């Protein structure tokens, strides 16, 4: 049953009208606009690359979050899912996993290419990819809480970033910080802090998101 829900969410995200490809295109488009704004100096681009790509990745992931629960809530399928033997916490965990597989993972896989285009040296590209692989689950997890809280609001997509972005500050700081440290040849605990943040966020968020879904369905 978990598998059925997971594959359903993945299919919905990847088929026509789904948001997986859109998030990826958004990520690439934002990253392309930055050199147009700040200039083509590769030295400068190399310094800002990690920050820009991390912020773009977080925004791209947020873009598809507002539909995570809302679409199912609006067409009634969330009621059906809630009637299944799965607990709402499990449902939330599965939906987070599906969201990460269709946004966080593709963003991570695309990031080395963009990293190279921003002039990052190979080892920094590796750290960037590793940091996104470690940190994007936290983005999906934190975002899912926001999506569950706002799912009954008609314009929830506008409030969601305000709720989630401040809470994701640690992920951006440690993710981009790890790459900066690698550029400067320093060893830092950034990746470990990022991993700790991601583990705690991923473990706790199904409970918060499940509670939020429950209160929104109760009304």
């Amino acid at each position, binding site marked *: 049953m978990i598998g059925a829900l997971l594959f359903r969410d993945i299919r919905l995200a990847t088929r026509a009208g789904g948001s997986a490809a859109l998030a990826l295109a958004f990520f690439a488009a934002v990253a392309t606009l930055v050199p147009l704004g700040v200039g083509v100096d590769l030295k400068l681009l190399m310094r800002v690359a990690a920050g820009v790509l991390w912020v773009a990745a977080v925004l791209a992931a947020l873009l598809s979050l507002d539909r995570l629960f809302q679409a199912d809530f609006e067409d009634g399928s969330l009621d059906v899912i809630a009637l299944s033997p799965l607990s709402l916490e499990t449902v939330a965990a599965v939906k987070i996993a599906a969201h990460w597989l269709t946004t966080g993972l593709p963003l991570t896989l695309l990031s080395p290419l963009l990293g190279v285009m921003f002039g990052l040296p190979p080892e920094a590209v590796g750290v960037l990819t590793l940091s996104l692989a470690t940190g994007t689950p936290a983005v999906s997890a934190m975002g899912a*809480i926001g999506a569950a*809280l*706002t799912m*009954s*609001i008609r*314009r*929830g997509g506008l*409030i969601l970033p*305000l*709720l989630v*972005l*401040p*809470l994701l*500050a*640690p992920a951006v*700081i*440690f993710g981009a*910080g790890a790459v*900066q*440290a690698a550029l400067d040849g320093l060893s*830092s605990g*950034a990746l470990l*802090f990022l991993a700790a*943040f991601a583990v705690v966020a991923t473990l*706790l968020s199904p409970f*918060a998101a499940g*509670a*939020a879904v429950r*209160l*929104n369905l*109760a*009304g």
Partner: protein
Amino acid sequence: MFAFANPKRFMDASSAFLPWLVAVTVLSLGAGVVLGFLTPPDYQQGETVKLMFLHVPAAWTAMMAYGLLALTSLFSLVWRHPLSDVAAKTAAPLGAVFTVLGLITGSLWGRPMWGAYWVWDARLTSFLLLLFIYLGYIALWNAIEDEVRAARAAAILALLGAVNLPVIEFSVDWWNTLHQGESIFRAGGPRISAVFLWPLALSGIGYTLLFFTLWTVRIRTEILERRARSILLSGAA
């Protein structure tokens, strides 16, 4: 304490102690500010040190407000007291205002001292993030029409913020020390002398009491508003 969770009892008790609270607030805040402005100029900061008596207590109060917001949110989630919903709802705008006050007075002080209205110092940045968390909380409350549902959703968000705030604080500190090991902000604190300490303590107490006064008034207003609304609704039916 749970005795006061009854709105009726809260209204009776608060109408009795509110005048006293106002009086003590005016006294301590007035004394703190007046004594603060009578202090001699600091040997490094000159006259701008007087902003401290407005700035530091505002920051303290903003953080205390978030603590109280999280605490009342916990009460409202666990025990479902309507009064704690009201208390949490009304604490948030107050906390946001104190945060803004702290940021504004801080940047006015920063201009002559650091040469810039805004620097990406760890404390400033985490305070700005605190403001966004307050704004998100208020926005969520306003966006959900059903009051009970709004209260519980907002309470979940408040607790999430409370868990995350120390992590944000830590990460911002880490970020700042990694990127710009400026010494000016760290070394800028010669131990505070007694001349400044007393007015600061007084205005700290004054700000705290001011928060509690405004909070009580806002809770009372909200309760009265809800009563008025239910009377209107029952009249219309």
